[in-house]
């Protein structure tokens, strides 16, 4: 005869506890409605505040009954930290909701298949689009990848493979570099190149400015990934008689491949929406410009910036729709980076 011992879980919430929690929430909602109706306090803020305060009080009363006085502080701490997390999530929800509702209004086929050559920001919605800016942003991203990824990965290799004397300083400088304000990156390119050489604002210069912002992200993430590659692999490579160069190129880098792609994607996500440096470096153009070295280029951030600055409802609407597109691109990159990142992690666990 076998008996299945049912595990006792004394800490798990019983039905009674759930009922009490439900009651306290209901009571708090009720009291918040009553208080807001009876007193001169008005508005969502009042509802939120009264609800939270009365929930604190009512639930604390229940807590005293169950856990005694000592439990109160813990219960209060749990609720107050929950309040912090709620406010943070609410701001994100508000941002996403605003972008979605306001952006969708101005989105149509023309908006993603045409340029602004024959339309102005102030024309009614439906005329002209931002394809030129999408292409411009992609060009900038490619240029930044071309410079920032080798730079970032090689720096990470120095920190993880060579571990030279300067490692500490370089690590520190890379961290400091990630704090460089984006506007300074733009000013620097303007001061160093546009004021000194015949080169005028173009996609290439914008890409250079973004490179400065992208390198630290790529370096840091690649460094983390390369540190995850097991030492055994390196030792195995060296024991087979491979030189360090061959070990890195044929063993370490392939092992970290998906992580390095993640690093690149995170870097791209970091720079895709940067606006301030582009105001100094890419110029303005309403049509397609496929020459990255000459002439202004339209990019999504600068189009949004122009739309916001335009001030009329049509131009602002274009700004919102463009930022919706930008946000979708960033979200896709974000999800890609996450899935690639977790796959790497699982592989390591196995």
């Amino acid at each position, binding site marked *: 005869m076998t008996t299945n011992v049912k595990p006792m879980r004394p800490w798990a919430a019983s039905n009674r506890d759930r009922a009490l929690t439900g009651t306290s929430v209901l009571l708090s909602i009720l009291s918040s409605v009553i208080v807001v109706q009876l007193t001169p306090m008005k508005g969502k803020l009042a509802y939120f505040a009264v609800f939270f305060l009365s929930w604190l009080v009512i639930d604390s009363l229940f807590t005293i009954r169950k856990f005694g006085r000592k439990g109160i502080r813990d219960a209060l*701490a749990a609720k107050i930290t929950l309040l912090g997390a709620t406010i943070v999530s609410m701001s994100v929800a508000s941002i996403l909701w605003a*972008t979605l509702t306001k952006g969708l209004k101005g989105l149509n086929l023309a908006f993603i298949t045409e340029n602004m050559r024959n339309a102005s920001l102030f024309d009614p919605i439906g005329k002209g689009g931002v394809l030129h800016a999408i292409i411009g942003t992609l060009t900038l991203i490619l240029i930044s990848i071309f410079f920032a990824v080798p730079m970032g990965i090689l*720096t990470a290799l120095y920190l993880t493979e060579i571990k030279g004397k300067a490692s500490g300083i370089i690590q520190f400088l890379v961290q400091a570099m990630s704090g460089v*304000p984006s506007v300074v990156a733009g*000013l*620097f390119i303007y001061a160093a190149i546009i004021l000194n050489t015949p080169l005028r604002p173009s996609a290439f210069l914008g890409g250079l400015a973004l490179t400065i912002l992208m390198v630290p992200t790529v370096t840091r993430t690649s460094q983390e990934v390369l540190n995850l590659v097991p030492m055994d692999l390196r030792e195995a490579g060296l024991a087979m008689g491979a030189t360090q160069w061959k070990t890195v190129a044929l063993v370490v880098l392939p092992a970290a491949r998906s992580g390095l792609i993640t690093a690149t994607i995170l870097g791209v996500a970091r720079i895709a*929406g940067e*606006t301030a440096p582009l105001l100094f470096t890419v110029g303005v153009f309403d049509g397609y410009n496929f020459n990255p070295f000459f002439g202004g280029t339209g990019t999504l951030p600068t189009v949004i910036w122009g739309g*916001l600055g335009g001030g009329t409802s049509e131009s602002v609407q274009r700004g919102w729709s463009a930022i919706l597109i930008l946000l979708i691109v960033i979200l896709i990159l974000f999800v890609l980076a996450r899935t690639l990142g977790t796959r790497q992690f699982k592989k390591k666990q196995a």
Partner: protein
Amino acid sequence: MSVDTPAKVIPAARKITTKPRVSDQIFRVIVTAFSFSALVILSLIAAFLFIKGFSTLKEQGFGFITNFQWSVTTDDAGKEITHFGLQAMLIGTVVISFIALFFAIPLSVMTALFLTFYAPERVKKFLITIVDLMAAFPSILYGLWGFFVLMPMAEYWAKLLHKWLGWIYIFDVPQPIYLRSPFIAGLVLTVMIIPIITSVSREVFAQTPLDRVQAAYALGATKWGVIKAVVLPFGANGVVGGSMLGLGRAFGETVAVFSVLNIVFRTNFQILFTQGGNVASMIILKFGEAGPAEISALMASGLVLFLLTLFVNFIANYIVNRTVKSGR
């Protein structure tokens, strides 16, 4: 008769050397050279901003930091008279950043504690994704959101603050105009720096030595007891470091602040009033119609901003590196 003994061949001793092969030497030189790119870029930034801003720095001297006037006028003889002073902008930047820290530190620490100790596994994953997502939002999105969504709400909050706390100088206003104030800019920055402070705090809290946590539980502590007695004392440095990283970000933020702040060259501590300053935003505000003299002044402002953020970041990273051992 003797057995033929074959001549013993003694191989020459293999040369053992620790000298790397040529290919390795090339590899090392290339990697080392590239690893100095951070140093090169940072020094180039400082050098070029200094060269281009030198004329302003020389002309205005120390007044560049302490004056608050910003004007280019031409006198009767056709000579340009320039006044460039950053005082109002620097103080404005600091005021806005401290408003942001005032709200962001408690919110971030609360969120980090909730994540580490109170949240169920699923909620935890979801919240971590949300915080990471916040860090990935471009600043222009925060600007648009701040202007069109947050500002109407925050105007109401500002009125409430003024109504109840107006007798304190900083909550007083000379005229009842509450839009585009340092308070609102500070709120936008709050949302922008929350992910930085939260993720650093979370990392530090998660590294609290497990034996100490378990010892506290074994002594009968509640979760809050553990947090108060073990986690917060252990993680305090990390929170400070994370906050300084957030401060560095807040100092350098441009587009989002520009969208929600009315930039005026007058030192103003009344945070609810529609008048503020911010070095980074001022640069893009003035850049459009700037003449050569003003461009030089803007470069000098950029240099000041660069050195300021670099300084804050150095301290922040020093603190964080000492506290957080893994990652970063």
